[in-house]
């Protein structure tokens, strides 16, 4: 059997997330890339391969070929280049592509950039572009689903089957806003209460405004290196990529087996645990895909942090706070940090690397490390794509 090489993450950078009308896609990417290069002590000339994750090229923002624009603006022209699309998991697809380029021995230094500009169009148009990102012909054309609507379908079934309550969903928003308020890069810096979440306007019942992630701009960058490159750069004790798992789900929601979990999350996480030789209980800190509050509850269950149907109980008992059984989305998650869709996968890696190095900002949200294992769970669409990445030290 072909054995992959060990790959380390030696540099990470993340832009401020939010409404970034001060920068275009090139400058937004530069903000993240510059920090990642400084962190890794490299420059663009050293980069052999660049994968750019972005879902909205030409649809949510003006550039149709953002990879070439980003490569030129950030001094990486000449490197092997691709854009990766996996909807909201595009950043993870880019990370995986860059990881594989190093792991299979083709290159020693690769970069993944995730970037999205989502505030250049009016909100109803953005809702439309995202709503079309299911199966346009059989779903959007006739019925006009939005992304909140897709997840709301799952919420209705989960509530019916397991007795999950709107208050349980609200607790996810309360937790993630709390940690977002401690993260200088987060889109939302405010705390919210259960009552405020429940009283916020309905977007797609049972999901209300505060159950939904914001429409954000943002970028994140990750530098990956082989062991040879680590020696050359004299990097010691880096964060390692322990394993990646992946899976997918049907384009037509009507072809899914049930609406109480995402099978792609189950399959991708099982694969990642197997490859990384870890179990859910070994994970110190996790970034899970909480584009809507129900998504975090389902992620707890699908990733094996609790039994199926007990996600509501896990959040009620505070087990996913710092100090609980497993710290989840302590950067604010997509819910409060923001969800620039192509950036999210790389932003999760950024957060895990900072946590595993013990460098989380602000200090109040540094997770105590026992096993030095972090997990990123990134969904594209409604379980249409899934990547799970395990990092460790």
């Amino acid at each position, binding site marked *: 059997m072909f054995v992959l090489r060990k790959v380390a993450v030696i540099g990470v950078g993340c832009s401020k997330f939010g409404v970034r009308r001060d920068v275009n896609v090139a400058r937004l990417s530069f903000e993240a890339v510059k920090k990642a290069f400084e962190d890794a002590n490299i420059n663009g000339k050293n980069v052999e391969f660049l994968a750019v994750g972005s879902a909205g090229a030409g649809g949510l923002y003006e550039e149709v070929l953002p990879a070439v624009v980003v490569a030129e603006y950030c001094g990486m022209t000449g490197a092997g280049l691709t854009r990766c699309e996996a909807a909201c998991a595009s950043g993870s697809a880019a990370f995986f592509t860059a990881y594989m380029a190093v792991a299979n021995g083709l290159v020693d230094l690769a970069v993944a950039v995730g970037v999205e500009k989502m505030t250049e169009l009016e909100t109803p148009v953005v*809702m439309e572009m995202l709503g079309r990102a299911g199966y346009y012909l059989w779903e959007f054309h006739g019925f006009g689903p939005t992304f909140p609507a897709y997840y709301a*379908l799952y919420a209705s079934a989960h509530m019916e089957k397991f007795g999950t309550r709107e208050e349980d969903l609200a607790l996810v928003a309360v937790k993630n806003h709390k940690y977002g308020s401690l993260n200088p890069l987060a889109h939302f810096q405010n705390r919210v209460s259960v009552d405020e979440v429940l009283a916020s306007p*309905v977007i797609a019942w049972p999901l209300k405004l505060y159950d939904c992630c914001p429409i954000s701009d943002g970028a994140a960058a990750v530098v990956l290196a082989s062991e040879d490159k680590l020696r050359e750069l004299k990097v010691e004790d880096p964060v390692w990529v322990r394993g990646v798992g992946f899976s997918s789900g049907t384009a037509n929601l009507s072809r899914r087996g049930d609406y109480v979990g995402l099978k792609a999350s189950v399959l991708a996480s099982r694969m990642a645990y197997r490859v990384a030789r870890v179990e859910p209980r070994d994970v110190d800190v996790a970034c899970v895909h909480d584009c809507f509050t129900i998504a975090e509850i389902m992620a707890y269950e699908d990733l094996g942090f609790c039994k199926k149907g007990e996600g509501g109980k896990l959040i009620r008992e505070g087990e996913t706070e710092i100090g609980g059984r497993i710290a989840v989305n302590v950067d604010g998650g997509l819910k409060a940090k923001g969800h620039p869709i192509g950036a999210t996968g790389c932003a999760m890696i950024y957060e895990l690397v900072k946590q595993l190095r013990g460098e989380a900002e602000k200090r109040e949200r540094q997770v105590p490390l026992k096993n030095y294992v972090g997990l990123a769970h990134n969904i594209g669409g409604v379980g249409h794509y899934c990547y799970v990445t395990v990092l460790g030290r």
Partner: protein
Amino acid sequence: MGIGLPFLNSKPLTLTFKIPINGFSRFFEELKNGRVMATKCRGCGKLYFPPVAECGECFSSGMDWVELDGEGEVEAFTHVVVRPESFKRNPPYTLVVARLKEGVKVFAKLSNVDLAEVRVGMKVKLKTKIVGDEAIYEFTPV
């Protein structure tokens, strides 16, 4: 961040895709006749809704058209209040996934219903309707 900062308007562009429906155009013709059709694979017997012209399981291109009775039970639902651009003139609407007696599931709008009545397990039936120049299908309560 940066509200009020300078920007450039891109050239506006309206896109209308001509989506080929060859291979399942009968589906849309039958909708106009009041029938909702599925396709059944002659190779492996799998029933498809939405209909397909080729079977992704056994790769047969032989499909029979089958009319759906349309009675089913809601598995998941939502009331869409914040609508996308091309549905913004519609009043808020209810979307459901329902499992039909035939075994396939259908994603569609649920019309003529009191919001408070909608629940998982509710009995619904597919019907067809002409809206403008398009025939559509939707659920109504039984």
